[in-house]
């Protein structure tokens, strides 16, 4: 187990390094620097900015040094918690992200639970009743779930709720509770607002996972040991849950590797449409206003979260299935 752990940890460090390169690239790519924007803004407000001042600012923000030096200075500060200033909000980037991250984490983890809670039972039902009406119904729903962009689903649901109940389903809290301190009423309000975003973000992942559960359980149900157990007169429900379902759930655990990025992707788009107070929304407005230090930092943070999540799912899988431990350390 130890060499396996060490290998995974090493990969994670490499991944995080690559991720920081991507984040830095996003910050550096746009033509013109955030300093140009800043100087233009200063001039607009009547502040006189001469060349000496520009040079001083250039030096202050390390814009006069080569790109490699800039990268190491940036990542050094980043790791120390200094992610720069957001010119759009005029606040430290880390504060902005820290404000929004809890909502993102809450939404993503609840969506993850939703995906598993729906797709595993549905997958089992579909597999045990293959080619039945239920199976076809689930398969068809799954196809539509995969083909519908989340933003479209969000829009249609909002529209239906507006038409049907006259309520607007934006945000995570209603107006009364947005700034209120935590109370039972606020929790209840949050619970009322959660289902729509969860369904919107989770649909695609659920649809894909149902297919995986169904396929792997079908493979398992054809095995000899199942036939033997049935021939011996084992009770059907016991027969199903004793081994086949447990074996079929292995690919489900490893699926976390692509479900997590999917959730964060969906969360970004959905947050914009439903105006959820998560990182997705500030990321979007940062991109529109070329507030790149904020945008790049969000990409790095969200990416790091998915990488860590993937590592955890790998460890769980290795703990559950000894074959994986062995195979990876033998390679």
């Amino acid at each position, binding site marked *: 187990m130890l060499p396996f752990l060490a290998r995974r940890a090493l990969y994670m460090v490499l991944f995080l390094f690559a991720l920081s390169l991507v984040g830095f690239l996003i910050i550096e790519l746009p*033509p013109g620097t955030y300093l140009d924007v800043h100087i233009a803004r200063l001039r607009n407000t009547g502040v006189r900015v001469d060349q000496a001042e520009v040079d001083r600012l250039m030096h202050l923000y390390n814009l006069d040094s080569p790109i490699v030096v800039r990268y190491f200075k940036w990542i050094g500060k980043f790791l120390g918690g200094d992610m720069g200033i957001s010119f759009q909000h005029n606040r430290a980037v880390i504060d902005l992200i820290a404000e929004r991250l809890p909502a993102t984490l809450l939404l993503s983890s609840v969506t993850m639970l939703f995906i598993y809670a729906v797709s595993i039972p549905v997958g089992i039902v579909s597999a045990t009743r293959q080619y039945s009406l239920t199976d076809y119904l689930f398969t068809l729903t799954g196809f539509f779930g995969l083909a519908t962009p989340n933003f479209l689903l969000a*829009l249609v649901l909002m529209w239906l709720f507006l038409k049907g109940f006259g309520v607007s389903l934006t945000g995570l809290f209603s107006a009364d509770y947005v700034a209120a301190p935590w109370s039972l009423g606020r929790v209840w309000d949050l619970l009322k607002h959660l289902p729509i975003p969860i369904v919107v973000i989770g649909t695609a992942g659920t649809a894909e996972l149902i297919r995986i559960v169904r396929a792997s359980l079908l493979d398992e149900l054809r095995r000899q040991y199942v036939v033997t157990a049935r021939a011996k007169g084992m009770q059907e429900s016991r027969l199903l849950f004793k081994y086949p379902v447990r074996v079929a759930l292995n690919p489900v655990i490893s699926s976390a590797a692509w479900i997590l990025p999917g959730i964060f992707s969906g969360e970004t788009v959905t947050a914009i449409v439903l105006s959820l107070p998560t990182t997705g929304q500030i990321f979007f407005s940062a991109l529109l206003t070329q507030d790149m230090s904020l945008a790049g930092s969000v990409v790095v943070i969200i990416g790091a979260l998915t990488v860590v999540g993937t590592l955890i799912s790998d460890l769980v899988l290795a703990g559950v299935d000894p074959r994986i431990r062995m195979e990876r350390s033998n390679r």
Partner: protein
Amino acid sequence: MSGTATTSAAAAAAAAAEQERYYTASHWRLVRAKFGRHLLARAALAVLGVIYAGGLFAGFLAPYGTRTVAAEFAYAPPQRLRFVHGGRVQLRPFVYGHARHFNDTTWEWDYHPDPARKLDLQFLVTGEPYRFWGLFETRLHLFGVPQPGQVFLFGTDKLGRDLFSRNLHAIRISLTVGLLGVAFSFVIGCLLGGLSGFYGGPIDTMIQRVIEFLIALPTIPLWMGLSAALPLDWPALRVYFFITIILSTVGWTRLARVVRGKLLELREQDFTMAARVAGARDLAIITRHLLPSFMSYLIVDLTLAIPYMILGETALSFLGLGLRPPVVSWGVLLHEAQNVQSVALHPWLLIPGLFVIVSVLAFNFVGDGLRDAADPHK
């Protein structure tokens, strides 16, 4: 007795002939035959054919151009095609022109069909000039209504542009983004997957780590970040080109994995050894012997990668970070429907979404059918 004997002999001969046909049929012929048995996939292929044809002949099929403005008909709802007027049935379809009055509460024009303004649909009419495939100028359109009436089958947008025409023209962009993106992914995926699987060792490890890294990233934020970096003053064609490249940054990984897996399997086979002994170079072995032997699997994965690209472009353009007007794609059209108020007042703005869903579904069904057909000997 002798009668049944001859029929069974004939049946046996027929079965033998059938079997012989099966054994002598080429690989691709078997693939085609197996795909043909997949009804849903065939239907989906037909749907895609119709949609692509719609895009190809958009200039002719659409009554108006993409930028033609009917200013007095902003946000006009879709007109229904009708066949019954005043209790009389007629074969020629017609629409009712819009009557409008100003709504004091919404501060917009309200439209309702006016039976007094009956507009018969005319076929093969002359209308606005357009260039057919950029070859020659023509004014011929499939249908239209007599001037000064206007026909809006899918309604109009905020400037009064006909959404039926715009949706048809959008096919060209939306459904080629997927094809072009897949072409990029194909080249990169084959190259890197090929290197990875053929050489193995450290090259393989490195490429596999890069792939794992790209799969672990949330795609939409990455795409958004990259496409936000495209300068606003770029010409539309260049933006389109770069968006497809951005979409393929992740798309090639799946393909590279398939290529690698198959190569690992095939490089140990006798025919590879034979080619090597005969003195064929590595590149020749890969392109002449290995690639063709798993081409069908590649095609399956390519088909299944297209819908992801279409969805990606739609999401980016919807957010205003992908393609931008005056380019017309389904995502660009959906950009108008960004908030629930405009959707509630003008639900027909969501029609491009239906096109997206239908074409993505169709690509998925075709891909599924191809997957079954890819191994016709099963």
